[in-house]
């Protein structure tokens, strides 16, 4: 399928660049180069997340910066083991992010519970709590792999029919935790 992004042509002159294309493609171009992720992590994969933002594997060159508040974040990276006590908090953070939002499950613990699957206090996977877009294996997931995961989110952004999504004409992801406790 030909994505709108394929038709955006960027002509670079001396000191100026002009992008011409369909509106969907232009908006996706802007969005994918500015995916801000929430500064959030629970366990060891969070250390790798911090390193991915560090100098060796720089995420800032893509335009990804971390934001401490979910109100300004596009991507929630589930970095680390998720316990039952933390599950409601993670869900609340996801709920408080504005659309469009994406979730990356980073590492074995966020994918399926990892090596703590049999534990009494560990949730067997982040996708039992929030809808996950990208699963990254690893224990811990390497910074290069997390960068690739973020680039896959970029590809997802490119191929999304942005205006249809913004105007509510694309289907919502299925609710993974219908029984969650709600205060309002």
């Amino acid at each position, binding site marked *: 399928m030909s994505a709108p992004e394929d038709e955006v042509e960027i002509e670079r002159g001396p000191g100026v660049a002009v992008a011409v294309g369909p*509106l969907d493609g232009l*908006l996706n171009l802007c969005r994918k180069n500015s995916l801000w992720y929430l500064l959030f992590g629970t366990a060891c994969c969070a250390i790798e997340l911090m390193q991915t933002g560090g100098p060796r594997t720089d995420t800032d060159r893509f335009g990804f910066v971390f934001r401490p*508040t*979910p*109100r300004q974040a596009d991507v929630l990276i589930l970095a680390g083991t998720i316990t039952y006590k933390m599950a409601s*908090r*993670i869900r*609340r*953070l996801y*709920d*408080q*992010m*504005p*659309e*469009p939002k994406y979730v990356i499950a980073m590492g074995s613990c966020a994918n399926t519970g990892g090596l703590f699957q049999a534990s009494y206090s560990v949730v067997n996977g982040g996708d039992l709590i929030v809808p996950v877009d990208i699963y990254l294996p690893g224990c811990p997931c390497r910074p290069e792999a997390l960068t690739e995961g973020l680039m896959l989110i970029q590809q997802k952004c490119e191929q999304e029919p942005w*205006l249809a*999504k*913004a*105007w*509510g004409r694309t289907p919502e992801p299925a609710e993974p935790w219908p029984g969650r406790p*709600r*205060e*309002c």
Partner: protein
Amino acid sequence: MAFQFATVFGFLVVSGVALLVFLVAGSFLRPRKPNPDKGTTYECAEVPFGPAWFNFNNRFYIIALLFVVFDVELALVVPAAVVYRRMIEGGAGWIAFTGIFTFLAILLVALVYAWARGDLTWIRAIERGECREVEVGRKEDAR
């Protein structure tokens, strides 16, 4: 000269129109999906409890007020100090001295008053013996 005014007016009109264009275009191009979970107050992912408003500490106001007063005093004394030597040569040295001194003395009285009242101490000791115990995160507050 009228042309400069027209330039400023044009600038204002363009900036106002640009603002409107960005906001209107944004409202068409951005998703609008309000739901009650999204509207909850952010309190580091915990259920928010307690009021969001608290008493403003008026220590800031008092220190800022004293600063403004003495800043204005400085601004008024500096020109006098600059021409002081010339006034001494002109024979009006005592007049200048008395003027500056009286001005500073009046404001010094105000400073001493604020100081003696304890308005300048930033960290104040808790004089009452007990602190009220606050239970954080009680289960009743969560529902």
